[in-house]
């Protein structure tokens, strides 16, 4: 597999990817497992699970795992550039058109509605994350402590993550005695 071929496959994946990160697994499976047998199905499932547990964008992570597996670090970089290629130009084009359109009152109406739908989407994402998590006392405690702190103090997301991750890991290490 040449880097250029790999690039083209990822350009295609980026172009057909619509919706959230979870849509990418079937697309990656079809391109790399079924059509080309370059990656085993089990490896792909592993990459997907790891991509979700790593920080960053899930779809970008899984693309880079596959790129790295096939062609090392240049493969990972190729995957990264390829998967963002079409989306990048779509955004740049749409953004330049959108600026001119916002004078129109119907476009303003549509954008008002869209703004509300984004709030709904965020709430639904919280619900989804909530449903997928293993909810024990630890989960509830960290959730409530974090939310209460955020409502009272103006902390940046990174400060919040650092403070509560350190508290959580220390608790697990010493109170629950994990190693």
């Amino acid at each position, binding site marked *: 597999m040449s880097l250029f071929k790999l690039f083209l496959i990822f350009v295609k994946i980026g172009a057909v*990817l619509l919706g959230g990160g979870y849509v990418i697994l079937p697309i990656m499976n079809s391109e790399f497992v079924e059509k080309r047998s370059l990656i085993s199905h089990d490896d792909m499932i592993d990459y997907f699970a790891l991509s979700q547990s790593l920080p960053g*964008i899930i779809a*970008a992570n899984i693309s880079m795992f596959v790129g790295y597996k096939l062609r090392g670090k240049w493969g990972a970089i190729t995957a990264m550039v390829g998967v963002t290629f079409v*989306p990048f130009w779509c955004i*740049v084009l749409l953004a330049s058109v959108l600026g001119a359109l916002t004078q129109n009152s119907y476009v303003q109406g549509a954008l008002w*509605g869209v703004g509300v739908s984004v709030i*709904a989407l965020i709430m639904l994402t919280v619900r989804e994350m909530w449903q997928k998590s293993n909810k024990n006392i630890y989960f509830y405690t960290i*959730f409530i402590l974090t939310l209460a702190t955020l409502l009272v103090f103006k902390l940046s997301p990174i400060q919040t993550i650092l403070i509560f991750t350190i508290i959580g*890991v220390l608790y697990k290490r010493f109170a629950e005695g994990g190693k």
Partner: protein
Amino acid sequence: MIYIHLFAEFFKIGLFSFGGGYATIPFLYHISQVYNWYSLDELTQMVAVASITPGPVGINVATYAGLKSAGILGSALATAAEMLPSLFLVIIVSKLLRKFSDNFYVKSIIETLKPISCALLTSVAIGLLIPDLKDIKALILLALLLVMSWKSKKDPLFYIFIAAVIGIIVVLLKI
């Protein structure tokens, strides 16, 4: 230098956001408050555009935010900066693979990041909702969208499309 700040902010998003594209919103919300790169209204617009164009939402919204902040060079920089931490992590993890996910600290951090991400997103939802509390039409539309998803979450495109159509109808009928 806006480019240095832009790079640093999006690098941090790539390193600390956890749980898919919408999990980057708390960071973008924070950026809109600290820097004057874009307003809150523009943020919701960016998220919507990022959801209806092809590609991962989290990357698209970085591209858009970069474009708003510092033009096309800014958008390339923000996109690359957000993916860079993943590149390093993927290379490290590929070498360790299973040893990585069995490590006590890795497991504890992941288990702790889940409730933190939920809380961060909840606080952003509250922050975005507060200005809308006076707008009764917005509250009705929000309730409608949430009721439609009661049984199962549909594709994000579905909600954005329905809400845009309702927004146009509201203007047409001068409600």
